[in-house]
């Protein structure tokens, strides 16, 4: 069996047996979005206007919630040292971790999003584009989050610090993702925005596993 599938099965098995974590992320996502109609008033046009942005910001924060646990369990029980010492490339371990994080966080967020589109009165013609931005954008969250999670291992108040470090770096993703919806509404088409998001995903995919692996080696040294 290849190293990838060995790692992937273990991660998924662990995630499945602690699936409450995944539901908590979704719960947070829904509640955070639902607060807005109370905060800014239930006027449908207003909600439609702010809906995409609110949903994206809530998705960002929800993804952040589970981020610090990406390596924390393995760090605390000593598994991380052994993963670093295994004959498998650490970059591959990181990729598997990011993939499972996305499958247990990003994917459920995408699946829940349409429900929130309805509740926030998001116009039907931008549903597809917004879902596409989530498909392209949430993996970037997991990838950049992995860097932050690895850097803050063993830090005091690591979870808060992680958000402080990673959220500013995610601003471009947010800008272009929400901009895609607006572009469609203004009749410009979202192609440019989606291309930029795709570029960010490819760039993050190429660089972050390497940086994260380096940070993990430092964390156990």
């Amino acid at each position, binding site marked *: 069996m290849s190293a990838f599938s060995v790692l992937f099965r273990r991660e998924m098995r662990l995630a499945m047996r602690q699936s409450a974590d995944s539901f908590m992320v979704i719960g947070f996502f829904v509640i955070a979005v639902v607060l807005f109609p109370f905060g800014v008033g239930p006027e449908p046009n207003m909600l439609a206007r702010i809906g995409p942005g609110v949903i994206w910001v809530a998705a960002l924060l929800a993804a952040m919630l589970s981020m610090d646990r990406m390596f924390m369990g393995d760090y605390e029980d000593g598994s991380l040292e052994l993963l670093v010492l295994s004959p498998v490339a650490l970059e591959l371990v990181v990729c598997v971790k990011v993939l499972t994080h996305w499958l247990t966080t990003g994917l459920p967020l995408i699946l829940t999003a349409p429900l929130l589109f309805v509740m926030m009165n998001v116009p039907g013609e931008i549903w597809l584009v917004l879902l596409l931005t989530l498909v392209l954008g949430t993996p970037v969250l997991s990838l950049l989050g992995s860097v932050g999670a690895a*850097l803050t291992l063993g830090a005091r108040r690591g979870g808060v610090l992680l958000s402080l470090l990673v959220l500013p770096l995610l601003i471009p993703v947010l800008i272009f993702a929400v901009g895609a919806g607006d572009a469609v509404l203004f009749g410009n088409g979202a192609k440019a925005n989606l291309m930029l998001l795709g570029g960010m995903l490819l760039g993050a995919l190429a660089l972050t596993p390497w940086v994260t692996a380096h*940070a993990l080696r430092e964390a156990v040294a």
Partner: protein
Amino acid sequence: MLHYFANPTRFQRLSRRVEPWLLAAMLVCFGAGLYFALFSSPVDYQQGHTVRIMYIHVPAAWMALFCYTAMAVSAAVALIWKHALADVAAKATAPIGAAFTFLALVTGSLWGKPMWGTWWVWDARLTSVLVLFFLYLGYMALRDAFDEPGRGARASAILVLVGFVNVPIIKFSVDWWNTLHQPSSVLRMDGPTIHPDMLTPLFLMAAAFQFYYFWLVLLRIRRELMVNRTRALRHRQASA
């Protein structure tokens, strides 16, 4: 060469000798710069007196980028060659860079209000500089978050290098996107487009900020070296 100055005692001696000169140069540049900036420079036909804000804003923005680049280079040297002095230099630079970034943002805002009619716009330049400010803060917070200083140093060095992608974005944001912020008018291929009388105070202030940085960073590095030395002595005390 690098290793020659890496010796803390030698570095202390050298920087003590250089510091008064830097301080003097800084004060002279500030004096002349402020005179030109406030009294002896022409009023811009479009901006009126607000052009005087530029003599702080532009050099501060340059310094914000300069400090970050210096930090990134130091961090890379510290990571690759395990160079202790480079690491200390990165640490000493961070608050100065953060201060310049803060100044660039605040003075930009004070200029924007009368000129654009708003304190803040969410365009590419302003946003990316704001991210730069957060990166400085994040660096300092991460560096401080570990009980073992070496671990904080290495983790934050990696963060600085990751955040370096932001620097070209800031530099080219005004050329890549159409925004309210005006394109660069001093550092361009075909020569500056602003009035020469305005260049004098601009460059004097930039030089003053540069000397300010070098003077202060040497002082801060010397302080960090003393802190390291103190810690080493404390460890020796504990194990004696």
